[in-house]
């Protein structure tokens, strides 16, 4: 006897890109055994134990035969636990417990618990999009993944237990529709600009950054609120468009950081990795490869607190995404391309000891130490910051100031300015051009520095609802150029 064969279909992810994987189960009358072949990684090999227990727990029959599961194409590396469900379905199909021909009309993706429950796995949106692109109209996945999978416009069969999947394939009953968890999704609470006392210049720069999408750097002694300011940028950014939201959701899903009650990321994401983060953690990597913080911040804000403390290699790796908005990671199994168009916000002290710019402390750094501190930040990276704000330590009497505007008051201005920059960008007047040329000589500015000043001036004009960039706006933009403490 040659045995019986059944298939199921799922998708492996290379980065964000789904690749079709056929799961073949072959049963032979021989000494009972169970083998998975086809470049399965450790988590995927362990599927054996989960699938065996899951099938038993669902009160189904574990075939007492020789079972071989092949994940094809065999040369594609299979990573993770999402293959549990398709493996179980293929085995059940081969042993005649569910109709095989129905199984291959579906994509399947999910992890099995030992008691037969189906657990959600990251990357469902990308898998569902893969199914959709190949004309498969239904995906069987964990009930909790329903809202996410539905974003790909496929029909979702939400199963919370293997027994439900079996009943569905046998045509006995459809699984209950997913009703969501109890309660409403949590309203995201963003830190608000109303919390900031004084700091008029930094607030103004933040508004410019939000309106023009500029990268910005806060420099100053410790305790002047640099991080606090940086964290408030997302609160004045516009919400994501539908396409942006789906792009961001796909990345967050693959990385497994999607909030279960918030299937669609609709607000600009905010990521603030610690300065001990590795290159792979920042730009992505690993065998998967998985997206890094830079990709998780796609269409949002990447805050790098204490910029010079980051590994230089990690900072240099950010230059590619800052340039073209993507990160490409080459692996033996193929090349993964992650989008990473983020707004970079950095904070730093003016010197290693933190005493510079602080009237209450004296800087004790040697010139050599200062030099080494500056050398950590390459000019190429510093040049990406359109706005640099030096935040001095306010004196005691200067702290008695009123609260500034709340983010909700700033946001409409940002939206209007973005609209103007997109549709009718302001043009520099002759006088403004003349000032810019004079500044190039006098300050002095590099060619890139000049372009940065011009961009920021255009944003300032858009915020002023002006059709022209006037002298005042160029002058203002000049005030946010890179100070000498950081540049040289």
């Amino acid at each position, binding site marked *: 006897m040659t045995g019986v064969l059944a298939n199921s279909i799922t998708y492996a992810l290379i980065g964000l890109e789904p690749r079709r994987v056929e799961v073949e189960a072959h049963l032979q009358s021989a000494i009972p055994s169970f083998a998975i072949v086809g470049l399965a990684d450790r988590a995927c090999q362990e599927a054996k134990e989960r699938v065996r227990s899951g099938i038993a727990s669902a009160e189904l029959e574990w075939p007492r035969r020789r079972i071989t599961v092949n994940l094809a194409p065999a040369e594609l590396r299979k990573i993770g636990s999402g293959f549990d469900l398709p493996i179980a379905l293929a085995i059940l199909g081969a042993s005649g417990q569910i109709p095989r021909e129905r199984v291959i009309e579906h994509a399947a993706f999910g992890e099995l618990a030992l008691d037969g429950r189906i657990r959600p796995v990251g990357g469902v949106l990308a898998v569902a999009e893969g199914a959709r692109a190949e004309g498969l109209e239904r995906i069987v996945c964990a009930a909790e993944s329903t809202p996410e999978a539905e974003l790909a416009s496929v029909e979702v069969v939400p199963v919370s237990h293997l027994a439900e999947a079996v009943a569905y394939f046998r045509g006995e009953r459809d699984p209950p529709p997913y009703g969501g968890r109890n309660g409403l999704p949590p309203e995201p609470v963003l830190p608000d600009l109303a919390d900031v006392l004084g700091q*008029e210049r930094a607030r103004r720069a933040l508004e410019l950054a939000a309106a023009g999408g500029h990268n910005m750097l806060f420099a100053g002694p410790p305790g002047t609120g640099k991080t606090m300011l940086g964290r408030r940028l997302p609160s004045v950014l516009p919400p994501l468009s539908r396409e942006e939201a789906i792009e961001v959701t796909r990345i967050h899903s693959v990385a497994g950081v999607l909030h279960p009650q918030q299937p669609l990321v609709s607000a600009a994401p905010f990521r603030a990795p610690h300065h001990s983060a590795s290159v792979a953690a920042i730009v992505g990597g690993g065998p998967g490869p998985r997206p890094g913080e830079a990709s998780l911040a796609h269409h949002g804000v990447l805050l790098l607190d204490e910029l010079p403390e980051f590994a230089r290699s990690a900072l240099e790796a950010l230059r590619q995404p800052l340039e073209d908005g993507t990160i490409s990671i080459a692996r033996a199994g193929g090349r993964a391309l992650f989008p990473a168009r983020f707004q970079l916000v950095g904070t730093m002290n003016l010197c290693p000891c933190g005493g510079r710019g602080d009237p209450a402390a004296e800087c004790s750094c040697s*010139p050599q130490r200062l030099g080494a501190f500056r050398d950590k930040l390459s000019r190429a990276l510093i040049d990406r910051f359109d706005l640099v704000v030096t935040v001095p330590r306010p004196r005691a009497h*200067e702290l008695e*100031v009123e609260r500034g505007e709340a983010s909700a008051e700033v946001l409409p201005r940002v939206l209007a300015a973005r609209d103007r920059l997109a549709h009718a960008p302001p043009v520099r007047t002759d006088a403004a051009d003349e000032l810019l040329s*004079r500044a190039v000589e006098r300050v002095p500015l590099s060619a890139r520095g000049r372009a940065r000043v011009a961009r920021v001036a255009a944003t300032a004009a858009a915020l002023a609802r002006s059709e022209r960039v006037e002298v*005042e706006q160029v*002058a203002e933009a000049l005030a*946010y150029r890179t*100070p000498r*403490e950081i540049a040289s």
Partner: protein
Amino acid sequence: MTELALAAFAAEADAHLVSRPRTRRFALFAAGFDEAGYVRELERRGLRFLARSDAQFPPLLRAIHDPPAGLFMRGGADAELLSRPAVAIVGARACSAYGAGVARLLGRELASAGLVVVSGLARGVDGEAHRGALEAGRPESTVAVLGCGIDRIYPAAHARLGGEIAENGLVVSEYAPGVQPAPWRFPARNRIVGGLAAATIVVEARDGSGALITADFALEEGREVLSVPGEITSALAAGSNALLRLGATPLTRTEDVLELFGLEAAEPDAPELSTAARSVLERVRDEPRGADAIGRVTGLGAGEMAAALAELELAGLVAESAGVYRGVRPAG
């Protein structure tokens, strides 16, 4: 031209020599020294040597008690530049924002008035004085004296500044190519800085600072010494204030220097300022402040404030350091 042999020998022996040593080693070296070849090699590298015996050697420097055997020179200017009326500006490497602002202002205004600004290309005050002189926009306005071989720039961070000085003036050193910077060479360098100038200005100096060595040297040679008053509570100004106590001329305006040379201040360009900039300037002159603090006393919005401050910076009236803005022109 045995001075060149002497300078080349000093480099090889890693010693500081101003006169021929009566040693066998030197005699052997001098006998085998290919002077024409050495000069050709210097020319190939864009360098020149001005011997002490040369008629163009600056008389003020020749007058000191241990003038160098000669000066290696880099740059396009004629050696005659070294004999023009010159001021030395010296001070702390780790200077304050105030010291940096004053050094730059003095460099600019003295160069504008026609003086040559001499300094040591060090970090801090030295570098700012050179930058100010270059900003004045007059050709051949500044001379940098190195404490290492003429073929290198120390500190490396000033490589570009050194290049600009060579283009617009001269970089000089008594040390032949190949001599490494060493701490003991800097006091010797300072004697040349002071020796080239008729007056030495100390901008900011701690107790025991190298700038005070230059000042002591200038006093010994009977040159004029001026010192910029600093805050009496600041350790950075302890040395320069002590000079005042000892009788150095206090420098409170550029004219204090110019009068020594019988010069008039260059016509101060009175830039047209916006109303906002004028009111900001008034506040900044009272006391150095951050942009937000000035905004609170003038009532200007953050955007207008940034524009006004940038305008004042471009006009050279205000300088920023660590987010704090200060007036840079003498108030008196």
